[in-house]
């Protein structure tokens, strides 16, 4: 059962059409990565979901509720983190979160507890009396997440949450998002940093020039594109005969001997990774390391897109 349904969505700014008839569905509890170059239509789509932009056409529902017809109900069920962090001058973290607790109409008696929980989850407990202005960019981004967790929304909309963050802050953000997914949140995250989404998302949508080029689980997209996958194998006995035998296996596209390993390209649709492992073993290969490479999102992206802008 889909939690988010986007059907024939169109977004127009005057004569310019930013989103052109896109449709996709996101099941509950998924972490959906929205990928595309700058100006592809990612933020426009997210803004429609956040009730900040009225679509020119199509329908968008969250949990069966239409975002255009019932924005007030939608707002109680979503948490939106924009790609910037608007700061209210001179507020402390406590005041900032109390401000939004009041804005989300959370009962007064429950606020302290919820704020404490959100700060603990985002690892900002020690900063409760610190001025928001003085927080680092990574902390501000985590504070934004704490803000949207206060009213316990089912859907989180994160527009480029990792932009401008240093590597440590990115890793912290990634772990936090995984934790939120474990808590049952449905998350839509837009980014153009591909390898980051590959490590994080259960589904992706690739958008270019306002059109959805591909959508679904990452493995399915790879299968559909008939993309090669790569596994790095370190053998104790990498003889020429063994390499030739691996090369001759069905589903194998190539074997490239590297300094201390073999980089084996295989077609996932024809040969499961577990079967490849067994086959090498049966051929007499003594395996020291067997490491399939993460799905190569960049290859998928480059294959699906042409570098067009809307």
């Amino acid at each position, binding site marked *: 059962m889909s939690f988010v349904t986007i059907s024939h969505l169109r977004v127009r*700014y005057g004569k310019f059409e930013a989103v052109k008839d896109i449709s996709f569905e996101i099941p509950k509890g998924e972490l959906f990565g929205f990928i595309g170059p700058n100006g592809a239509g990612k933020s426009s789509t997210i*803004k429609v979901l*956040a*009730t*900040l*932009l*009225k679509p020119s056409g199509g329908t968008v529902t969250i949990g069966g509720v239409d975002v255009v017809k019932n*924005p*007030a109900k939608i*707002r*109680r069920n*979503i*948490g*939106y983190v*924009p790609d*910037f*962090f*608007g*700061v*209210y*001058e*001179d*507020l402390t973290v*406590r*005041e900032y979160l*109390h*401000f*939004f*607790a*009041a*804005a*989300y*109409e959370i009962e*007064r008696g429950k606020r302290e507890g919820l704020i404490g929980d959100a700060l603990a989850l985002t690892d900002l407990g020690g900063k409760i009396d610190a001025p928001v202005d003085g927080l680092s960019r990574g902390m501000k981004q985590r504070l934004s997440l704490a*803000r949207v967790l206060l*009213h316990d929304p089912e859907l989180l909309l994160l527009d480029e949450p990792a932009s401008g963050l240093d590597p440590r802050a990115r890793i912290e953000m990634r772990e936090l998002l995984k934790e939120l997914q474990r808590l049952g949140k449905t998350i839509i995250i837009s980014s153009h940093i591909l390898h980051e989404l590959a490590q994080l998302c259960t589904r992706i949508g690739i958008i270019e020039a306002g059109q959805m080029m591909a959508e679904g689980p990452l493995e399915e997209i790879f299968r559909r594109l008939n993309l090669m996958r790569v596994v790095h194998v370190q053998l104790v006995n990498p003889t020429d005969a063994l390499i030739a035998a691996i090369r001759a296996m069905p589903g194998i596209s190539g074997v490239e001997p590297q300094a201390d390993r073999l980089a084996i390209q295989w077609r996932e649709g024809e040969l499961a990774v577990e079967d490849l492992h067994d086959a090498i073993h049966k051929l007499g290969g003594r395996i020291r390391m067997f490491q399939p490479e993460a799905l190569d999102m960049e290859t998928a992206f480059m294959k699906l897109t042409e570098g067009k802008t809307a």
Partner: protein
Amino acid sequence: MSRWTSVSLPLLGKELIEHANRRRTYVARVIYAVALVGVYGVVQLQMSQMYGAQGASLLGQGGMLFEFLFRMQAIGILIVMPAITAGAFTQEKETGSLILLLLTPLTPAKLVLQKWLSRVLIMSGFLVLALPLAAMAYAYGGFSADFLVAGSAVLLLLYLQVGAFAILMSAWFRSTVAAFIAAYVGVMTVDFLVPPAIAPWLAIDMVSHLGSSGTSLQLWPNARHVLATVVVMLVIASSVLAWRARASGGNPVLGIFRGLDRLFNRGDELLGRRRRVVSLPVSQPIAWLEFNRRSLANWRYLIRLLVPIELLIAGYIGLVSGGMSNHLWLYILLLPLVVLVLLVLGTSLIAGERSGQTLDVLLTTSISPKSIIRQKMRALYRILIALCVPLLTVVLYPLVGRPTAFGSSGDDNILGHVLTISILLPLMAWLAVWIGLVITNRIRAMVTAVIATVIWLGGGLILQFLLLMVGGYRMEGPANLLSSFTPLAMETYGLLVGSGNMDATPIVLWCVLHLSLLLVIRHVCLSRAAALLLRA
């Protein structure tokens, strides 16, 4: 390459290209030209009536026409120049691009000079619109070419000086709102209260003395003083630009009051009293934010600010004593200042959230768009009430000890002033909020609000004047009722009622019309809140 061909003015070029590419540049010029021609036409018509209906009767009266045109242009400079200049650097500061400019080989002095020159050239574009009218006035004869040169030179000095002052404010202040208010307050204060000691240094003083002094040579000593102040202001602006570019934002008055709060808290602790607990929002978070953190909407701070102002006003009025006519200038000075503050705060009400990039986040919370505007307006109303206190003190002080004088106090137009304050000011506040909602760029919204207000109030005064002319300077019949449509009508009606010359119908009509307009604008802002707030 010669010295002159190597001179490069990239910032000036960029500013002028941007200005030329904007549609509103041409709209503003057309409005300015129409207003100028309209007012000039009215004056010429009136002079024709005075000197006889035939065109030839005006021969030899060109001096009066030119002097009027010259004064109109001076008023135009005082209104337009701060508006186009105050945001010159503050906008760069708000977008973070000033630091980038300071990292280029352009020195602060070059930046200041190019920004100032761009505004001077833009203002020149407005002033040349009056050339055909000046030519017409010259054709009637009655003044020398030297008078023409002197007038043009004074105007030039005026906008050089006003521009330099506004650039200084822009270099000093962190926000466009603060620079905008400071530039206008400075210009208006000097305009109304030219201190004798510094009068020779002010171009505005030359404006008021042009008719008597007359020739360009006589103006030269003052011109040197004015040019010296221009140079000094530009030098100060250059020297503070880099320092102020790094200055943190925030309201300095608010900072002083917070410092006082800390001092009082420490005093309470020493005396063993309970320390004041920092309040947290309960039900209306936006109103809480406005009252506590954003502006001088906090009652405690407002009272601290108002007490010294009230003491000064009361002390002054007590000294001059007598009717309000003795301190009418105070009312004339305060009313435009209050209107200006309301326009700036009203247009910034939502524009501030937009430029701070917090509006999108607010709009995805459970607070409805209508409630966002309502909560914001609570703070603006509080400031409005506080601003009305000094105005009402000036107006109502003459009643102290003689309460029966209300509405019938001879030359004291108390009723008219009270009606203007109580109806027109809230109307201006809502008008500014509406403009701020429709025009998403803060500085553009402010400039539009100021210009629209000047046109509305000024146009109303011209209409009143025309109606007086048509009615033979007797406010009776249809002219009387038509006059109720003008916003500043109460400034004269109350006076007429007070002296028993007129019935109260136009007053009732004025109140109904302006209250209705207020309610309509308020209704539009609230009923279309979602669409207006979601404008990109």
